[in-house]
Every structure is written in C-alpha cells, then in structure tokens.
C-alpha cells in the first residue's frame, strides 16, 4: 500500500479508535469515565473501515474462491476476471445508490450522535465516497485486465 492520504487517514483513524477505547477501559477501572468514547470510536472506525475497503480494492485483495479460476485457460480466465470486475462495480454502485438515497432523505434531519452530537452527514458522505470509489476502481481494473 502506497503511503498516500488513504493510508494516513485510515491509520490515524485506527490508532485514534485504539487509543480512545483503551483509555476508556483504563479510566473505567480507575472509576473515571470518558464521555462519549464509543461515539468517537464509531466515527473513527467508519473512517478506518472506509479507507480499508478502498485499500483492499486497490491492492486487489478481495477474498475469492480459486477453485475454477486457477484451472481454466488464460482466455477464459481473462473473461471471468472482467465479468467479476464488472459485477463488483455493479454491486458497489448499488450500495452507493442506496446510501445516497438515505442521505438525501435524511438531509434535513440533522442526525447526530447522542452524547457528543457528532454529525452523521459527513460520515455518510465518507461512506458514499468510499463505495463510489470502489465502483470506480472495479471499472478501472476491468479495463486494465489484459491477457497474460
């Protein structure tokens, strides 16, 4: 994984979630509490998981069953890989469409977390950008698949 913005955003979010959650445990055992720690972890995890999804797609790391694809000829394999990339794009586009629909419906709802009032709208935008990115990556990979 190249050390671009995606890496830094995902890593920072992951380390933030780790630090806040661990601090909350220590504080709880000391009889103290970190107000809204779960909400911070949730927001950080959304950033980390969105970055993680894109990172896995860029690295072509999505889990696949290799039973047939490793045993077919190069031409068939090429077509199977193209179809697979196309179907991936369709699925992620459907997820994006559903997420946009909900975000549009809730645009005047001023959704926010209960304790810290962390607004959900920017988090929804991050998740939509991630799945749109995934659909784009799948289409780009479909065009880039070439015969071996």
């Amino acid at each position, binding site marked *: 994984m190249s050390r671009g913005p995606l890496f830094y955003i995902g890593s920072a979010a992951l380390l933030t979630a780790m630090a806040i*959650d661990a601090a909350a445990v220590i504080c709880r055992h000391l009889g103290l509490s970190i107000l809204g720690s779960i909400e911070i972890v949730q927001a950080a*995890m959304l950033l980390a998981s969105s970055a993680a*999804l894109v990172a896995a797609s860029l690295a072509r790391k999505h889990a696949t*069953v290799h039973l047939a694809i490793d045993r077919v000829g190069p031409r068939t394999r090429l077509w199977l890989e193209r179809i697979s990339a196309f179907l991936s794009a369709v699925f992620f586009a459907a997820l994006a469409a*559903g997420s946009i629909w*909900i975000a549009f419906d809730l645009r005047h709802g001023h959704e926010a977390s209960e304790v810290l009032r962390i607004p959900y709208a920017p988090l929804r935008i991050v998740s939509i950008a991630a799945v749109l990115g995934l659909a784009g990556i799948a289409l780009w990979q479909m065009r880039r698949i070439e015969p071996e």
Partner: protein
Amino acid sequence: MSSDALAGLLGVLLLLALLVAGVPIGVSLGLVGFGGLTLLLGLEPALIKSGVLLFDTLSRYELGVLPLFLLMAHLCFAANASRDFFRAAAGLVGHRRGGLALASVGACAGFGAISGSSLATAATIGLVALPEMRERGYSDSFATGVVAAGGTLGQAVPPSGALIVFGIISEQSIGKLFTAAIVPALTQMLLYGITIVLLCHFRPAIAPASPRVSRAERWRGLVRILDVAVLVLIVIGGISVGWFTPSEAASVGAVGGLMLCAWRRRLTWPALGHALAETLRTSGMIYAVIIGALIFSVFISLTGLAEAVSSLIGSVSDNRVVAMLMIAVVLLVLGSLLDGLALMLLTTPILLPIVQQLGLSPIWFGIFLIRAMEIGFVHPPIGMNLYVIHGIAKDVPISRIFRGVLPFLGADFVHLLLLILIPGLALELPKLLAP
C-alpha cells in the same frame, strides 16, 4: 416448498456459481442478496436496506474488534514473536521422539492466539519449524502434515478472525464465542498430540529423537515468550472474566502489541507503517465480505429457505445427533468446494435457524462450524494450508503433504464427532465463567 423458498434455493445456487467463477466472496453474497431482495420486495426497499446495512456496518462499534485484533497480530509479527513460540516449545519437548512435531503444534496454538488465522499460522510456524524438523531427520510427509494441520489451530484458538465474523453475522456474543472456543482448541491440540505420539510409536523412523538442549537454553526460550504470553492472557482472560468487552480487549491488545514492539526494540516507523497497511488491507477485505453477507442474510431470512431445509431434515430424522451429522456431511462436502469464509457466510443464514430449532446453542454451532471450516483448510481440492506448506517446502510434492496430513484429518473427524456428542465441550466454560 414455497415460491419464496425456491427463490432462496435458486439464490444459493447462483451464489455457488458466482463464487466458483471467481467473483469476490463479498460481491457474490451482496449481489445475490440485493437481487433477491429486489425480486421479493422491489428495487427501492432493496436499495435502502443495502444502504442502511453499509452505514451500520462501517460505523458499528463492535466491528472495531476486527481491525484492532488484526493490528495486534501484525504488531506481534513485527515484534518477531512467531519464532519464539517454536523455540520455547522445542526447548521443552524437542529432544523426545516426535518432540519437534509436538512443539510445532504447541507453537501453532501459541501463535494462533495472536494471529487468529489458519493460513498465517501455517505459513509462519512452517517457516521456522519445517527446516528444523527436516534437518533433524523427520520424514517430509510427517513434518509438512503436522504444520499444515497445526496451522488450523490459528483459527481455533481465540481471538479468532473467523469467530469474530461468525459472531457479527449471527449476532452472537463474541466474548462468549471466544470463551467457548478454549476447550475445543485444547482438545484439538490434545488429539493432534495423541496422533503424533501414536504415529511415532508405530513408525519411529519418521521422527527421530534429538539431543536435549541445556536447562539454561530452555529457560531462555520460556523467558522470551513471557511478554507475549502475558499479553495473550490479559486479552483472552480479560474477556472471559468480564474485565472488558471483546472490542475493548482488541484495543487493549493493540496497545499491548505496540508496547511489546517497543519493549523488544522493534518499534520503528517502517514496522508500524507496514503493520497498519497490512491491517487496513485485510480489514477492507473482511468488511466487504461482511457487508455482502449481511445483505445475503436478510434475503435468505425473507425466503423461508431455512424453515424448508429444517422440515426436510426433520422428515429424515428428528434425532438431534443424526440431524447434526447430516449437517456435518453437508458442511464437509461444501467445504471441499469453497474456502472457509465462503462456506461460513453461505451456510450460517440457512443452518443457524435449523440448529436453533433443534434446541442447540448458536454459540456451540459457531464452534462446530469453525471446526468444519478448519477441516476444509487441510482437505483437497481446496486445502489452502497444504498449498501454503507446499510454498514453503517446494521440493515436497503436494501428494506427500496430503499423505502426511491424513492422520490429523482423522483426528479432526473424531474431534468433530466429539463436539456433536458432547456439546458441553464448548458450552461449559462460558457458563462457568459468566453464569
């Protein structure tokens, strides 16, 4: 069978076709689920349900357990903890006949407690244990078979990635699943140990005895794993006795992993960057699978397919053991076609309601399913662990590796049967620790 259940069955068949055609597991599950929901409910509800599931999954607090345990594992790799487990176990029993094989199984269990993955465990312990066993005159077939089978302990010993995914898609307590996995993992180790002892008894030439290492060397080996052992004990013990939730345990474990790296003077920017990058990539892959599986699950629950399959099984026999044996056969057959994750995600929405109708615990089913998945890791034609070991010992033909793993496969079948006959193996410890 109702038309909805028929749609569910067609969905499962289409899913199998997509998986075999090499479409990513998450995409296959999600597409079939989305298509099915569109057919049953219409496009708008299908889109909205998928959108809701996406946001809920990405922002779910409990799911943080997955990347944070992965981060802990990668930090422990960076601290070079993997080699130490084998060295410590080899120091204790390596001088006995078959001792290095026993040490490999012990090292796999120890390393499994930080890696949570069968493939990573087989690969990591294989790299350390195989050259040593072969150098000491162990038979190629036996040595490779031991590590391939031992690798499956990576998934059996908590915290296990597969148990976390099962807990999420079946909405079961991950803490209870981890606690329930402890006794089955220990009995699995015990059965592998018995298999090694029996093999060495009847065919002594396959694993000759080695010179005993000095007492000081043995102590050094044990001291070297003390820090990792403490970390694992805090994480697993803390969950079992209720000090913290699994999500919190993952955070504590990741902080512990950072401290471990620092303590061993291995905490460098490149090492941390590598651990974070690997964590993000693997988490992304699992998140995609979970999102797809949740959409597929909603579709399957709407079709009533589970009820149809349940009444089919009930018409054959109403005996719980017979029903579970039938389910085990289905899992083993499917497990020889699909890899573990695909098998779990395909079968959980269908089989879990059946198991519950039979009066069995979903926690027990999680452990049972993981054991069935593990068998698929050492069972041709998929048998991923066999190929991982073949990648390390390229001069050993895959057929010899498979011959070596056969006795352990036998032990796995016995273990699966024991789990069916004595559910308490998985269920007693969670009851004892959190009544």
